[in-house]
């Protein structure tokens, strides 16, 4: 593959589809593959196929009765009690045929990424079909059925004895992964997201720092609504560096939701494509600095599948495979021409967004000030441990 990185993908991952009008739309995977192929940064023959996670593997995190309910729902047997008991059959996660298989293929992609790194000697692996961070042990939530990242983390712990740093830059709080390892000092979770006061799921407050032995191993950096690139990146860079230095992981797993962009219809942040160029750069750098290069990246949210996700996720692969030299301003014409007809919005012609895609932000200074305070507050346990007197 390209350099030291592998790209994992199977068509089966496209089957994760609730219905035509649902905002979670895996066509973004096809569009990303296509953009990378047209750019010349990915050769379809070289992709590593995902696999289907076994029930045994799902049970590393999920309850057996929940998995059984998903299997039943896949076969059309949805009881109304599933809505409250298992979160299945709601408008967010409606049942669909073969949902168990489809969700297992997303999990298997992330497990394959783990094996590629630990068994086959690759430094980095990317499974854009993963990143379903809202899945709970016994409940579907926020478009997520099985939590591939939680399962992969437990798998890495058990199989390779690895200490994992999980970094989540989706606009929504990475609640499922956080709660799965809330008591565990060998897994550190760090989530950057739009504040729960404004956005689903409502959690991810700075004072959620872990519990029992796991206290001090959950970090949350919530952004104010309408935060912009500069402020979000300042917090991201400072917190990720501090937390990596403090936890000294064996491997970094990043969740790369692409829904902090101004165009995203579900969130209220004001990111631009630049965000998705910078985020993987630092993860890449720190993986080499602290983890002997070990870095796994997964996808996540991202609901403007036309203007945002293909560019954002392509940049992730270009950074991971050290091919950013291929970005020359314009998107490949073939890609734009191919998807233009289907798109309800004007497709961008450039890799990066021009200035001024959104109006002036009222109270910008206040938002930035608040974000700076959040950062200090979020990192308090580290500062206290290091006896750095910043307060």
């Amino acid at each position, binding site marked *: 593959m390209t350099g030291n990185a592998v790209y994992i993908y199977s068509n089966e991952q496209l089957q994760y589809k609730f219905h035509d009008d649902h*905002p979670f739309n895996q066509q973004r995977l096809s569009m990303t593959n296509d953009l990378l192929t047209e750019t010349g940064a990915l050769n379809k023959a070289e992709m590593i196929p995902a696999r289907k996670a076994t029930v045994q593997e799902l049970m590393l995190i999920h309850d057996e009765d929940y998995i059984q309910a998903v299997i039943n729902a896949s076969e059309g047997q949805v009881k109304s009690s599933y*809505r*409250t008991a298992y979160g299945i059959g*709601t*408008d*967010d996660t409606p049942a669909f045929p073969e949902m168990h298989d489809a969700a297992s293929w997303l999990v298997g992609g992330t497990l394959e990424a783990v094996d590629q790194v630990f068994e086959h000697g690759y430094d980095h692996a990317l499974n854009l079909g993963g990143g379903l961070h*809202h899945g709970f042990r016994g409940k579907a*939530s*926020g*478009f997520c059925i099985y939590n591939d990242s939680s399962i992969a983390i437990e798998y890495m712990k058990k199989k390779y004895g690895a200490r994992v740093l999980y970094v989540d830059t989706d606009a*929504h709080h990475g*609640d499922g992964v956080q709660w799965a390892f809330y008591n565990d000092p060998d897994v550190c979770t760090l989530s950057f997201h739009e504040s*729960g*006061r*404004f*956005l*689903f*799921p*409502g*959690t991810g407050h700075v004072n959620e720092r872990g519990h029992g032995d796991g206290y001090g191993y959950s970090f949350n950096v919530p952004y104010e609504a*309408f935060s912009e690139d500069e402020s979000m990146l300042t917090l991201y860079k400072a917190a990720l560096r501090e937390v990596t230095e403090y936890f000294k992981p064996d491997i970094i797993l990043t969740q790369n939701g692409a829904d902090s962009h*101004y165009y995203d*219809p*579900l969130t*209220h942040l*004001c990111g631009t494509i630049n965000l998705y160029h910078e985020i993987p750069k630092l993860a890449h750098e720190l993986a080499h600095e602290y983890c002997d290069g070990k870095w796994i990246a997964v996808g996540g949210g991202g609901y403007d599948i036309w203007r945002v996700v293909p560019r954002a996720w392509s940049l992730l692969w270009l950074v991971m495979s050290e091919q950013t030299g291929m970005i020359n301003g314009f998107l490949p014409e073939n890609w734009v021409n191919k998807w233009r007809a289907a798109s309800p919005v004007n497709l961008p012609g450039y890799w990066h967004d021009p200035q001024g895609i*959104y*109006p002036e*932000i*009222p*109270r910008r200074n206040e938002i930035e000030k608040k974000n700076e305070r959040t950062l200090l507050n979020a990192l308090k346990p580290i500062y206290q441990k290091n006896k750095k007197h910043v307060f």
Partner: protein
Amino acid sequence: MNVSDIMIRNIFTAEPDMAIGDALELMKKKHFRHMPVTDSSGTMIGIISDRDLKEASPSIFEGNHKDYMNRPISDVMVTNVITALPMDFAEDAANIMVENDLSCLPVENEEGDLVGIITETDLLKTFVKLTGAANPSSRLEVEVPNESGMLCDVSVLIKEHRMNVQSVLLYPSSEKPDCKILVFRLSTMDMRPLIETLKKQGYNVIWPRELGITL
């Protein structure tokens, strides 16, 4: 919601002859800030707080600091303790704490036995729970006229969109005296279809809102 629903039942108590220094150490180790003091029959006779103990302490540079740490807590404990009953409403207990400037409230049953304790932290946790933010949910804020039936009307629309309500808050608008604010937490990641319906029906949706409107 009653005091018995939110109180801590597993309480650490101290005996009156415990040394002040030992009490401070125990509280530090267990992360408590208060401890009820009970006699040998288990009846509460006072309460100590780490703040009270520290405030009464002579400076560490004075010779009598060590003597102070060896004195029994019965010398410095607060007697005439204000308590709550298990059946009291949580909001009444909160009121008692605010009025008397207390940060904790022991709970006694009708026989005078100590059965629990509630602290500021418990009340704050309850507040978080009441506002629904502990469950995965999205926040909806709607301004409605201060008239009968508005909560019902909005709720019907939420029901039609098959969204489950985690919590509801309702309070008078601080800016418009003839309006109220309804705050819902709804178990959904995508409120857009509901927002569209609300707007179509003329409701003033305060959150989520578009960029460009003054916050």
